[in-house]
């Protein structure tokens, strides 16, 4: 891991609200985190906690007429949220790209996979048709798709789910981005295919300086790939830690709950799987105080009244919980 002092991407106070018929929903509420060059950051949380919305906000892929994005997203010395749409478009797919969750629906069914890779090459790398096609085939080879020349000319429905996700990865990598948001890249796949895709991502990660923000709810994937983890709950960051510390010394009850929910293979079949009771709160009716308190087994009186401050324990280690006192020492 090559961590330089200046972050590649720095998100500060990101707040994304959707305007709906029922009112304004704040899906991401004051999220801060940094991504350094060459690292893999895990962004973890249950469905609906704002992980994907964070990524979509950074790339400004949400419909601007229905959303408001506030805060700062500094990337290469520019605040992405201030760029005009045309400048932002040139960053998408070239320096920052994204891998989506659903390989079944994320590829255009009526364009060949080769064309779907080649079109960004023509656009961003200014390659002509022939060179772009050749590079597309080369990209398919890199993501280890057998007989790439034939596959490039095929339509997505001829490819299996794992193969399509490889195509998505090839697409995201094609223009040598500095940063990739991988939004649940393995969730929709079979377990064996998941392992293949993870291995592929790890393999591609080696020898490149590309940073990956790995969005997932699968802590196993995080353990394998990420060096640092940011845990989100109900639109907020609740904990951040280097991956080893997170697994050994999680501070937030939510993180601990997530860790306990991982099934153990040696577990007796009759014992119930651990879970965190309750569900993620409706974003329209957020509980007062700490948003996790209704589900927290260790909730105290203060948790119901005031939301906890972010306590920075040391570098890359912070937690937002009333249980954590400052005795750890600031920084």
């Amino acid at each position, binding site marked *: 891991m090559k961590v330089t002092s200046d972050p590649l991407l720095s998100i500060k106070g990101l707040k994304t609200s959707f305007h709906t018929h029922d009112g304004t929903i704040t899906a991401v509420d004051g999220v801060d985190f940094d991504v350094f060059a060459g690292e893999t950051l895990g962004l973890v949380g249950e469905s609906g906690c704002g992980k994907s919305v964070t990524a979509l906000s950074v790339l400004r892929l949400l419909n601007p007429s229905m959303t408001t994005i506030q805060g700062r997203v500094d990337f290469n010395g520019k605040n992405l949220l201030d760029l005009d749409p045309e400048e932002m478009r040139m960053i998408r797919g070239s320096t920052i790209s994204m891998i989506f969750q659903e390989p079944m629906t*994320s590829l255009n069914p009526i364009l060949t996979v080769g064309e779907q890779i080649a079109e960004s090459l023509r656009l961003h790398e200014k390659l002509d048709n022939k060179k772009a096609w050749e590079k597309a085939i080369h990209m398919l080879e890199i993501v280890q798709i057998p007989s790439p020349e034939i596959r490039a000319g095929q339509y997505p429905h001829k490819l299996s789910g794992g193969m399509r996700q490889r195509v998505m990865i090839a697409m995201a990598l094609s223009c040598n981005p500095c940063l990739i948001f991988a939004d649940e890249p393995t969730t929709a796949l079979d377990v064996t295919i998941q392992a293949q895709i993870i291995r592929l991502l790890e393999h591609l990660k080696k020898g490149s300086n590309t940073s990956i923000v790995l969005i997932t709810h699968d802590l196993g994937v995080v353990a394998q790939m990420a060096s640092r983890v940011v845990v989100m709950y109900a639109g907020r960051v609740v904990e951040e830690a280097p991956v080893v510390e997170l697994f050994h010394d999680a501070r937030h009850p939510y993180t601990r709950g997530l860790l306990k929910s991982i099934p153990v293979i040696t577990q007796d079949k009759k014992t119930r799987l651990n879970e965190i009771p309750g569900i993620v709160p409706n974003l329209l009716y957020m509980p007062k105080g700490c948003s996790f308190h209704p589900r927290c087994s260790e909730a105290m009186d203060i948790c119901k009244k005031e939301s906890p401050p972010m306590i920075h324990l040391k570098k890359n280690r912070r937690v937002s919980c009333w249980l954590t006192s400052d005795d750890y020492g600031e920084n």
Partner: protein
Amino acid sequence: MLNFLLKRLLAIIPVLLGITLLLFFMLRMLPGDPAQVLAGQMASPADVEIIRVQMGLDKPVYIQYASFLNRLVHLDLGVSARTQNPVIEEIWAKLPNTVLLALCAITLACAFGIPAGVIAAVRPYSWVDYLVTIASLFGISMPVFWLGIMLMIVFSITLQWLPAGGIGTWKHLVLPSVTLAAFVVAFIARMTRSCMLEVLSQDYVTTARSKGLKEKAIIIKHALKNALIPIITVVGLQFGLLLGGAVLTETVFAWPGLGRLIVDSILARDYAMIQGSILIFGLLYTLVNLVVDLTYAFVDPRIRYE
């Protein structure tokens, strides 16, 4: 592919047979005596009887049907009672006019309807969208004859830019095409809008955006192409209907097409003519549908015919 085509072409035969059967017997249930119509009001019962025998109408209906089928197999649609010309010649004389008008109307409708629908879908609930919606409502609910007459008053009588009726130059085509297209354009625009709205919310459109593609490329290459199948269906069905002749428009603009031919024949109880022209209409309609089905395979690689 060839197999599929052959099968579909063979399937047209029973369809046409069904049409002839229904048509033949329904026609004969209509009140009114073709022999009487032909002979005229003043004719004596004896004269009417002679004509009836000449036309073969004195025989039982099933015999008439059998001889009709027999002639049909030999590609003979009979002779028009009204004009004494072979039915096929009469139809052949009118068909190009109808096809021309239908082609113009459908081209016009696509040229305006599809872009209007796309623009409305790209900016839903904006003023453009409302404008398209309101215009479509007008187009769909406006009676064709009224629109035709209004256009005629404005462009033929007041401004004197275009002829009020008849056939000959391209100028004669404009008003009837516009009149016919008004309904179809509205229909296509509504259909395009709803299909595009659906496609634009698909994951692969977000993928296309995440690649930094230009908005135009996203809308046309990624979205519109995916929305085309239902649009093609609507266009095909409407074109098929237009081929059957647009009776009202043809009447308003004195356009010598198939629609007017059919109506005139019905009024004259010209059995051979009605049967012939409706059969040809049925044939054209099924052929258009076949072409539409074949077009699907060009647009969507997932559709393959074996």
